[in-house]
Structures are given as structure tokens and as C-alpha cells.
């Protein structure tokens, strides 16, 4: 009796032990495999840069089949933080580095314009920079003051700390504050979604992400086109940065080199960004 119990207990014990071992193996084996085979690099940060980085990574991987580039969002600051802690190899930032971040190595991969967008049903085509500022500071509250059918204006802005918001603040608002009444969305896509659904909304997003769902306004009669941006007429532009912890090495370096190469820059240009080629030529 006692022996049987003991044996049963031992077998049970052994089973548990084997199960534990097996589960550990199941969890850890694939990761060991990953580390050996895929020497991938991680690119993380600004959600404004993300779609372009994804495009570049795809193109890069189709040329270098051995390479793996993982693109993640998270935000400019999160990306910079991730580079600092080596959680990511490359950080994406849609704003210039802050003074306390200057120890990191930043490369401008392109410049991007910020477009003021409204719903496609909105009859307004053109706003002066002053009007945009008055609207976003909450001093103009109704569309009729701008010549559109009467209705309260629905402001859509980005969250505090966003690279797009910081650039908008700098180029459009100056010392004025963006109204606290404004709705806040946490990505370009979310703002586009809200503006495309609400006929009375106005927002600002990366020009590269404007599509047929929304309408980009002329600012002080200047249309946000590549020609106007390159000619220096459309002034709402900000840098897109790749941020490294020290000199880029290995895979990260070759990806950066690819991004700065003419074919990749042409790709970015097609997507509506202002490329470094044009900038350096100017």
C-alpha cells in the first residue's frame, strides 16, 4: 500500500517535472533559435516616421534577404529612450533632439511638411497662417467667421509631447497656446479618421499621410506641394530623424546607408517627403 503510494507520488512528481522542463524548452528554444539565425535590427519611435520606415524596411529586406528589420511605433520620445537603453537599434524622431538628448547621434533622413486638413465637404480652400493660429488658439470658434456654413469649429490636435504637435506649435502657434477645447488624438491616422468623419473638424497631420479622405488646405494661398516645399514657400516643415546610440555599426549602418541612397530617397519623395538629396542640393 505504502509502496504503491510512494511510487504513484514519484511518478506524478516526475510527470510534473518533465512537463515543467518541456514548457521551459518550448518557451526558450525558439528564442535561442531566433537569436542565432535572425540578426535583425529594431527601429522604433515616431508614428509619423513609422509608415515610411516600414516602406524602407520592406524595400531593404527585399534587396537583402538575410536581413530582418522590425519597425515599431511608440512615439518620438519612446524611440529615443529605446535607443538609449539599447532596446532598439535605431530610433525614429519627428522632432529635433532636445538639449539633453544631444549625446545621441542623429541623422536627418528626410523632411516632412505638416498639412492643415479639413473634411472634404468643407467649402474652405485656403486659410492664412494667422487664421489657422486664431482657429487653433480658440479665438475663432465658428466656421461662419471664415466664410463657411455656420457651425462651431471642431479642433483636432495631437497629444502633448508629439513631434508633430511640437512642430505645429513652433511654426504656426508661436507663443499662443493650442486651445484646451481641442480634441486630442494620438496619431496622424486617428486625426485623419476624425476629420474625415466630422464635416466641421479641422486638424493637422503629416503631409505624406494626406489622402483622398480629407482635404489639405492652402496656407496663406500656398498649396502644400513638393514644388512649394522645395522652393521654400510652404514653411511648415520639420525633420525626420534616425537616432543612434553612438556611431551606427553593422546592420544598422547599412540600413542607414540604404535609406540615404538615391533609390530610397526617391521612394520617400514619391510618398510626399522632402528628401535629403534636394535639401543638400539647395
Amino acid at each position: 500500500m505504502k509502496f504503491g503510494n510512494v511510487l504513484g507520488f514519484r511518478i506524478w512528481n516526475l510527470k510534473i517535472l518533465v512537463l515543467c522542463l518541456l514548457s521551459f524548452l518550448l518557451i526558450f528554444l525558439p528564442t535561442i533559435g531566433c537569436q542565432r539565425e535572425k540578426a535583425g535590427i529594431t527601429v522604433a519611435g515616431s508614428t509619423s516616421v513609422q509608415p515610411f520606415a516600414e516602406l524602407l524596411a520592406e524595400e531593404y529586406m527585399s534587396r537583402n534577404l538575410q536581413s530582418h528589420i522590425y519597425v515599431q511605433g511608440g512615439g518620438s520620445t519612446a524611440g529615443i529612450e529605446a535607443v538609449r537603453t539599447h532596446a532598439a537599434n535605431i530610433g525614429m524622431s519627428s522632432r529635433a533632439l532636445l538639449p539633453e538628448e544631444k549625446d545621441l547621434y542623429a541623422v536627418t533622413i528626410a523632411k516632412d511638411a505638416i498639412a492643415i486638413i479639413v473634411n472634404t465637404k468643407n467649402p474652405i480652400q485656403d486659410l492664412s497662417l494667422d487664421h489657422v493660429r486664431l482657429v487653433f488658439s480658440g479665438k475663432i470658434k465658428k466656421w461662419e467667421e471664415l466664410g463657411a456654413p455656420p457651425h462651431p469649429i471642431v479642433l483636432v490636435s495631437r497629444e502633448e509631447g508629439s513631434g508633430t504637435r511640437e512642430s505645429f506649435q513652433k511654426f504656426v502657434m508661436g507663443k499662443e497656446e493650442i486651445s484646451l477645447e481641442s480634441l486630442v488624438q494620438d496619431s496622424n491616422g486617428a486625426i485623419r479618421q476624425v476629420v474625415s468623419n466630422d464635416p466641421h473638424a479641422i486638424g493637422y497631420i503629416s503631409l505624406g499621410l494626406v489622402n483622398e479622405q480629407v482635404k489639405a488646405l492652402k496656407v496663406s494661398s500656398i498649396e502644400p506641394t513638393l514644388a512649394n516645399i522645395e522652393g521654400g514657400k510652404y514653411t511648415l516643415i520639420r525633420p525626420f530623424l534616425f537616432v543612434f546610440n553612438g556611431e551606427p555599426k553593422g546592420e544598422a549602418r547599412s540600413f542607414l546607408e540604404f535609406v540615404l541612397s538615391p533609390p530610397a530617397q526617391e521612394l520617400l519623395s514619391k510618398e510626399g517627403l522632402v528628401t535629403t538629396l534636394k535639401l543638400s542640393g539647395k
Partner: protein
Amino acid sequence: MEIKEKVIEKILLLVALSSIAVLALITFFIFEQGLPLIWKIGPKAFILGQKWIPSKGLFGIFPMIVSSFLVTLGALSLGIPLGLACTIFLCEWSPPSVGTVLRPAIQLLAAIPSVIYGFWGLVVLVPLVRNYLGGPGLSILSGSVILGFMILPTIISISEDSLKALPPSYKEGALALGATHWQTIWRVLIPAARSGIVASIILGMGRAIGETMAMIMILGNAVKMPTSFLDSARTLTTNIGIEMGYASGAHRQALFATGVILFIIIMLLNSLAIFLSRRRTG
């Protein structure tokens, strides 16, 4: 054998403790990161401050505390009547065949990811509110309705348990005294199960206050004191969720500090729920 049992007992204890250790770690880090900022600007300025402008060093979360409670209140005013009606029907009237379909369906409500609720709300509910009631549509009202559905499973399952736990003699006695079925439910069963029902409501409240993803999508996230149910608002959780990606320095600490306040509120609610449900047995 004694030794072996002891060893196993100790191992299990260790496993059990490790899950509590996670809670302790989370608590420690939230407080460690958040408290310094609360002390620096003063608990009163932080909790009762009206303005949240991190770029100017203004961290007042009072509008968010108010919004959190308004959204929760709205959710409860929809969730309690619906949940109670559903519970009473399930316990007292539903034929077994209906119950077997209804119960899993209600449980399924809890299994739907909150981002799906948010998406549904954004696409279906928000335009309805905007077109028929006015305002931007992204509003406390829309958020409350979605949250009201999200807390239904919590309210129904716990209050159903407490109704079922009543001794059958209560019901039999009431019916024998000549009370109608409805009188029995309303005057005898519900009051007798009151503490469990209240606990279910408070747990639902905790769920409502803690919900983040769906609220980011539906509330519009404006940082202002809401003046009507059609206004956009930002709750404590969405404040953290929406700004986390880009926050650094004091701004980041302020988000942790928001977490501290949220943590305290939820702790109070859960303690209240535990206290009330214990009283039932005592």
C-alpha cells in the same frame, strides 16, 4: 515523504508569492516614479489644478478626475438597470433553454477586446451622437454608453451569484404569504441580496474607471472641464495612455503621478467591494 511534501509546499508558496511580488513591484514603481512630482508641485495643485499643459509645467488633473467619474456615472446609469433587469430575468423567469444561450452570450461580452468596443463606438455610435444630438460626437455620452455595455458581464455574473446564494426559504416564505412573484423579487430577494449586488456594481465601477483603450478612441481626449455630456473629455487612464509615448522628464513623472491617483481610487473601490461582500456572510 515528509520532506518532499514540505519542499513542494514551499515551491508552491514561492509561486504564489511571486504573483504578489509582481503587484508589489508595480505599486512600488508607480509610487516611486509618481510621488516626487506630486510632492514637488503639491498634492493640492496636482489634484485640484484645472490646467494640464505639460510643456509649460502645468500639471492639474482635476478635469480628468471629474471626467473619470462622469463617464463612470454615465456607464452605471446604463449598466445598473440593464444589468439588474438581465439578472432578475436570468434567475427568475428565463426558461433553462434561454438561460443556456443567454449566459454564455453575456460572458462573451466580457471576452470582446476593448479595442473592438472602441472601434464599434467610433464607427457607429459617435456619428449617431454627432448627427442627432450635436457636438463632436466624441463625447462623454458615447463613452458612457460603450462602458455601460462593457460592465454588464461584471454586474450580471456577480449579482446573479448573490441572488442564487439566497436560501430558497426566502422565496418560498414570501410566496406562501401570498406575495406575487414580482413582489417577492422586488421586496424580498433583491433586498436580501443587496450587499452582493452593490459589490457587483462597485466592481463594475472599478472596471469602468480603469478602461483605457476604448475610451481613448471614443472620448476625444480634450483636456478641459466637461460642461455637458456632449463634451469631449479625458479620463485619468486615457491621459496616461495617450501621452505615454512621447512623454519624458517631469511630464513622464506626471503621468506616473496620474497613475498613483488612479491606483488609490481603484484600491478604495475594491476595498469597498470586498468589505460589502464580506458583510453579506457576516
